[in-house]
């Protein structure tokens, strides 16, 4: 297991994100600590993506505070994020990973070795020379995951990593996530898929309309939801 790093815990203290008069996240108080994956669930527009971006340091809160390991000025060198629709650079598969290694500051002499390890981890060995934009959707997701892991992150944020993938591709991604989490990387991800949340989550955060409705250990959340919204969501009813 990885030694505790300065990135954790990520603490939200009454955090709000607003764009003009529109409040996207409101009054979020949450602590994300090391351990099993934290999974954000909730309907569309709940604020899951924004919360991930705030935790990554890409979006600033307009009220409240967010800290990483108790500090609010930690450079995001040990954080990585994979977006819901990752963009492939106009390069080969290998070129995409080399670029990520370069921007992460990895020594050039290690690039080929690290790249081989990453490609093996995500099951893309043999596709090094293929243009990244010609990979299938599932392969592109896995390449994006490899690119994020090239940063050797302590915390990995995944925004709907299996949206629009078929079951086989979804399983491939989930296996990689389990592997990465087992190596001590803190995974924080969002999903619409309750089944996936049950399979992966150690901790659940339920968001609705920009507010945190409930959070806690996944087993407890699914067995004994405390709120009406959580009960409805678990039962598959629509939260509107």
């Amino acid at each position, binding site marked *: 297991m990885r030694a505790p790093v300065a990135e954790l815990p990520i603490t939200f203290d009454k955090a709000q994100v607003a764009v003009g008069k529109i409040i996207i996240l409101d009054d979020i108080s949450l602590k994300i600590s090391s351990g099993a994956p934290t999974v954000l669930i909730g309907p569309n527009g709940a604020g899951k993506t924004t919360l991930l971006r705030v935790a990554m340091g*890409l979006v600033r809160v307009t009220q409240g505070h967010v800290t990483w390991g108790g500090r609010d000025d930690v450079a995001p060198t040990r954080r990585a994020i994979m977006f819901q629709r990752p963009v492939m650079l106009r*390069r080969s598969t290998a070129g995409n990973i080399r670029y990520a290694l370069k921007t992460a500051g990895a020594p050039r002499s290690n690039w080929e070795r690290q790249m081989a390890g990453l490609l093996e981890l995500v099951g893309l060995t043999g596709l090094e020379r293929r243009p990244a934009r010609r990979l299938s959707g599932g392969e592109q997701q896995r390449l994006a995951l490899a690119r994020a892991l090239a940063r050797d992150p302590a915390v990995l944020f995944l925004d709907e990593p299996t949206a629009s993938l078929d079951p086989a591709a979804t399983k491939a991604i989930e296996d990689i996530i389990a592997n990465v989490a087992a190596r001590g990387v803190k995974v924080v991800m969002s999903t619409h898929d309750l089944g996936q949340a049950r399979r992966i989550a150690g901790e659940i955060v339920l968001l609705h309309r920009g507010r945190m409705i409930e959070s806690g250990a996944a087993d407890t959340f699914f067995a004994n939801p405390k709120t009406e919204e959580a009960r409805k969501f678990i039962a598959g009813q629509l939260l509107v």
Partner: protein
Amino acid sequence: MDTDVSALHLVLSADPALVAIVRLSLEVSLSAVVLAAVIGVPLGAVIALTRFYGREAAIVALNALMGLPPVVAGLAVFLALSHSGPLGKWGLLFTPGAMIIAQTILVTPIIAALSRQTIEDLWAEYRDEFAAMNVGALGRVATLIWDARFSLVTALLAGFGRAAAEVGAIIIVGGNIDGFTRTMTTAIALETSKGNLPLAIGLGMVLIAIVIVINALAWSARRAGERLAG
């Protein structure tokens, strides 16, 4: 018919006068495109990636300058390089150097405007990934130019087309001096007015052939690049 045969003979026999004119034309136009690319691509990238007061006006001005009349550009360069002009001491008027300057002025806005659009479109795609990978400003510019290089070829081709076909500016600043500043386009204009149609037609054939070959090469390079890089 005799005129066409004579023109073809001049081309196929590599007539020395014709070859000299073609060589000078290529030197001037390609030099202007290279200089315009060195100025225009980074300029387009900076305008694409930065937000500053007057940016919209700068984009409109850049787009408008794509249609800059060659004779106006030629007149401006003539005034600047003339004996009493601010750059008169350079002694460039009626030299190939003056022609390169004039064509660079004509081509730079085309390359800059097209580069700006290309890079801005790619920037919209890459923005989140750059932020996620913590890429600095210079790294972003370099990456965008590199990744857009095959699309930017189109901008360079447009610039070359403008330079190769241009006659108004270079005839003003070059003077169309035989053996020194006479290019294909100025020679065609002159020889046609003199009634020497074989040379004019022969140069026209060569000019069209050069434009087709360069476009074909650039197209091939772009397709090969897309196959390799996606």
